[in-house]
């Protein structure tokens, strides 16, 4: 890797190092707000790792997030938290592989529909299993993790996600994903193993989401399937990534911060109208910022032509 290639990873690490002492100097309210921001940064960036380049709109975010939360609820009292996080990552990767292998042959609306229902399906299965074998549906979580620990864990995870994103973006895998996003048929004919590339990155993205769920679970002290699998999370992640711009790694970050703050204000002041306002924000983003804030900065809507050109450039890199 050249010296120039080290700039982006170094930036990520330095930014994280600067942000690390933050919870020591702010009070509980602000801590919970920055935890919220970090959670959505992690989820939206993980979402965009897969959905950004491939343009497959996934609504399954909360399915994995909820799985992670439930892993913590199940194992939190018996295993140390490091082991629980590892277990949630393994579980997330396993479920994502099964889902990916069976559904990534679907594209377009078929994929959206499937992921749309996946969270509901997992929620129903967990509810059913809990009622049948556990006796009760809800669970208490008593784990010795403080708000500060959660903040640091999330910050660390964000660093890992960004480094993974930088690496994927520069690798052959990232190139393959962008080719799939442009035109899957052409990509396949050019020798891209589309299924392998899609499943791999889908699993990576879903594993990160699962770990986020496991880290966040202790904040609730009590969870049930309606809390852990709340579909609003998937929608918010989607709209944040879109507002920021899912085509670039730093894009979702630009969408998360304004929207977390906006939703915070809205849910505090207009709790009854939250759904309507969320919908209006959604419509606003789709109609007025179709390429995201990052797209505005980067200049103009990414047309098929320019993307094809840049894909051609990447195919013959001038090294």
């Amino acid at each position, binding site marked *: 890797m050249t010296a120039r290639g080290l700039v982006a990873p170094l930036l990520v690490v330095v930014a994280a190092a600067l942000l690390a002492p933050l919870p020591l100097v702010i009070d509980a309210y602000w801590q919970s707000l920055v935890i919220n921001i970090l959670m959505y940064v992690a989820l939206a960036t993980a979402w965009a790792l897969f959905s950004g380049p491939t343009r497959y709109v996934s609504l399954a975010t909360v399915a994995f997030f909820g799985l992670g939360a439930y892993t913590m609820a199940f194992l939190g009292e018996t295993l140390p938290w490091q082991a629980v996080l590892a277990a949630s990552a393994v579980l997330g990767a396993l479920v994502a592989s099964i889902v990916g292998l069976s559904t990534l042959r679907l594209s377009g609306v078929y994929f959206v529909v*499937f992921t749309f229902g996946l969270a509901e399906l997992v929620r129903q299965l967990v509810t059913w299993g809990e009622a*049948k074998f556990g006796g009760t549906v809800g669970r208490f979580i008593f784990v010795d993790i403080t708000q500060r620990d959660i903040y640091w864990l999330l910050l660390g995870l964000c660093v890992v996600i960004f480094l993974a994103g930088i690496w994927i973006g520069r690798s052959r895998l990232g190139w393959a994903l962008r080719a799939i996003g442009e035109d899957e048929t052409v990509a396949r004919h050019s020798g891209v193993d589309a299924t392998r590339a899609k499943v791999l990155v889908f699993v990576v993205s879903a594993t990160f989401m699962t770990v986020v769920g496991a880290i966040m679970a202790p904040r609730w002290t009590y969870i049930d399937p309606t809390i852990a699998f709340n579909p609003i999370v998937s*929608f918010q992640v989607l709209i944040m990534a879109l507002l920021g711009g899912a085509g670039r790694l730093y894009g979702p970050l630009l969408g998360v911060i304004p929207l977390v703050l906006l939703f915070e204000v809205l849910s505090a002041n207009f709790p009854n109208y939250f759904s309507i306002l969320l*919908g209006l924000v959604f419509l606003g983003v789709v109609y007025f910022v179709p390429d995201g804030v990052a797209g505005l900065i980067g200049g103009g809507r990414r047309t098929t032509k320019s993307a094809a050109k840049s894909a051609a450039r990447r195919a013959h890199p001038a090294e």
Partner: protein
Amino acid sequence: MYLVDVVLSGLVLGGIYALIAMGLSLQYGVARIMNLAYGEFTIAAAFGAYVLFSLAGINPILALAVVMPLSFALNWLIYRVLMTPLVRRAPTAGALEVDTILATFGLLFVVQGVLLVIFGGTYFSYSYLAIPVEVIGSTLAANRLLAALIALALGLALYLALTRTRIGTAVRAVAASPASASLVGIDTAAYAAFAFALGGALVAASGVLVSMFLTFNASMGVVFTMKALIVVIMGGVGNILGCLAAGLLLGLAEALGGAFIDTGLTLAINFALFLTVLLIKPTGLFGKAAR
């Protein structure tokens, strides 16, 4: 006799699923709009029927005559105002699909939010024709049976209108190929708006029918959207008879699964069916080879 009970109630349920999905099939198959706010409009119509029945004493069959034209007009407006800009800016069919999915998401939350503000989160129902009738040795609620029969009649009327009339032929031409349709002098934009609005009228009809026998609340729309999507995709996009077959299949699977496996797993059964069909035949039971 138990099996007959289950099969019969499955078929009745399936008939209603088929109607719920037909509206979506028109909106997606002809107007190319993937309307994810679909279920919210079903629920809105159910609330409409509830209000008409409990405040004005208008029975749900008459309510159809009020709610369907209203929904037709509203959906026509939605297409003209909200969807036309997206149709204009989309470079490809795939891009339009993604854009409309996202836009109708926003719409989903707006409609759901409005319903929540007006009606709150509690469950609603009213009692209309809740009397048992006997059909081949098994008892069914009269309102369920009536709803299924009206659903079948509407489905049949739609099928005949599409295959036997000039307007129906034009609609099918737009569905098959918008570019060629405009070459032979069909105003594709107008027909797309018409199909979207007609789909909206059918959504409203299914909402009214469902309200006759189901307890519903403001946040139940997603369930209907899911079922409609599963039926449309299973039946083959834009295929009315496919809708009917897939709807009946889904209703049957749900009733049988609920009776013999576990009622807590209906969604899992839906999904298993959906995936199996797609893995065997990616374009649906009656779909064409490629779209």
